[in-house]
């Protein structure tokens, strides 16, 4: 269990994390989603005590992180796989962590095997590792103490498709055994596949949270037509909220309502269906738009 309450972090006038509250529950994978620079990493660093919060507080398994007697056995943390001494071997890095936690040496070999690093790879210095290998090593460090809570910042970074699949299965199994898994990502699709709960953050604020099912259900209707202007006018007349996606329109109403509006307006539709996730994607794109250079999206059309 991870509980974050009214967490705020200010750097001078800039607010990196703005009154963030959420909980990651046992037995579930919680996806922490947001564009680059949204405050995900800062929030995670505050939770594990590497960054002091300006206000608010965070608890892991009912305690402040600093009050955990041997955190490695309770919380597996991977914030940045590249943050390792380049001159140490992978095995040495795991050995140091195991020694700190007071674990037997045998655990190191078990973990190397679990993350599929071969003995010869484990004997190489980390400066010669690919990002994917570093990521595996980081995950091995996090899993070393068999913790019941995992905090992983962008763990899929640098992994190949097979690696991403492997990690997804690993985290799923872990959560199914009752562990709390919090992982961040800036890729909606990546997190949609694995997460049970979602916390969406943008510019330091939480913009949506809930179970994945809830967030997807609130998505409305997706409709496609060759005659967009006529349909748009009809929707305005019918007083329905809608927005333009790349090649479709998303309407905040049930499909049958939208279908009737289209029928009355005499517009031929090419597609009409529940929008599963399109709303989430749209919200996410809007969040991302502010930090991206090619902002050619329109807001709600009038």
């Amino acid at each position, binding site marked *: 269990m991870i509980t974050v309450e009214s967490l705020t972090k200010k750097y001078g006038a800039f607010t990196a994390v703005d009154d963030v509250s959420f909980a990651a529950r046992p037995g579930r994978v919680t996806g922490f989603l947001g564009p680059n620079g949204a405050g995900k990493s800062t929030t995670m660093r505050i939770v594990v005590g590497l960054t002091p919060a300006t206000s608010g507080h965070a608890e892991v398994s009912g305690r402040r992180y600093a009050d955990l007697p041997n955190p490695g056995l309770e919380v597996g943390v991977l914030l940045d796989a590249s943050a*390792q001494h*380049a001159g140490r071997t992978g095995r040495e890095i795991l050995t140091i962590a195991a020694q700190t936690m007071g674990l037997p040496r045998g655990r190191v070999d078990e973990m190397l095997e679990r993350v599929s690093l071969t003995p010869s790879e484990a004997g190489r210095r980390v400066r010669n590792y690919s990002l994917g290998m570093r990521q595996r090593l980081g995950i091995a460090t996090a899993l070393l103490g068999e913790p019941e809570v995992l905090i992983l910042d962008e763990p899929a970074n640098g992994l190949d498709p097979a690696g991403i699949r492997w990690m997804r299965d690993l985290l799923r199994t872990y959560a199914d055994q009752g562990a709390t898994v919090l992982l961040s990502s800036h890729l909606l699709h990546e997190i949609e596949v694995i997460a049970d709960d979602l916390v969406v953050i943008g510019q330091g604020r939480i913009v949506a949270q809930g179970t994945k099912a809830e967030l997807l259900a609130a998505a409305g209707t997706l409709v496609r037509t060759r005659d967009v202007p006529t349909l748009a006018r009809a929707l305005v007349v019918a007083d329905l909220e809608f927005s333009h996606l790349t090649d479709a329109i998303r309407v905040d109403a049930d499909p049958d309502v939208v279908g009737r509006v289209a029928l009355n307006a005499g517009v031929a539709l090419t597609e009409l269906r529940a929008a599963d996730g399109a709303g989430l994607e749209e919200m996410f794109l809007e969040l991302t738009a502010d930090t991206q250079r090619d902002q050619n999206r329109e807001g709600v059309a009038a």
Partner: protein
Amino acid sequence: MTATTMDGALETESATATRPAPARIPTSRIIAVELRKSFDTRSGFWMLASVGILAVLATAATILFAPDDAITYNSFGAAIGIPMAIVLPMIAILSVTSEWSQRTGLTSFTLVPHRGRVIRAKLAVALAVGVVSMLLAFGIGALGNLLGAAIVGVDPVWDIALGDFAGLIFFQIINMLIGFMLGVLFRNSAGAIVGYFVYSFVLGTITEVLSATQDWFERVQPWVDFNYAQGMLTEASSMTGENWAQLGVTGLFWLVVPLAIGLWAVFRSEVK
């Protein structure tokens, strides 16, 4: 939403019930880990190995180049002291700064979420390495003295008083503490190393020139110049109570206060 919240609450209870809280990480283990970390990289290993290597080189150079009447233990001690004053502080600096420069602090400070415990363990390791290195260096110097005297054909001269041994070790320990202080203050390897050379060699030269040319400075120097006060430790057996007071006063301003500021920053800073 309500349903999941309740499920969550129930599961937390059962999860915490089945897992007893682990014991606190003992300090001895943190020290052992820090000791291991100072050996387990190529740079760390060679840094420590260089203590022995440089002591041997300095001893060999003394045998080769010192005039016959200078083949005394004091000459060997002085020759070995110079590389030690450079290498030992580097060991202390890197033990601290690598956590930031190499970003290993991300792991170190999450596995032990009390930076004070980690820093204290590093200090303990640095001091132990310093004392052991000095004893080793003195041993190598003693062998050199015996060998040198045999080659030249004179009786070996043991002209370092027992009290001066302690003084010389203390002298080098202070150098290590200066390195440690600069490490916590800068938290950056390059910055702290440059800082050490400025602190020990550039400042020392400036104050020497000042005291040679300015009467007023020569009078206050023992009370304001830490390098000068520290230098008195090389002949610790002849230090007066006033000299010790001067060492204490200058050490307070040049070592203890900046160390306190550095530690304050270490505890508050972000580890990125």
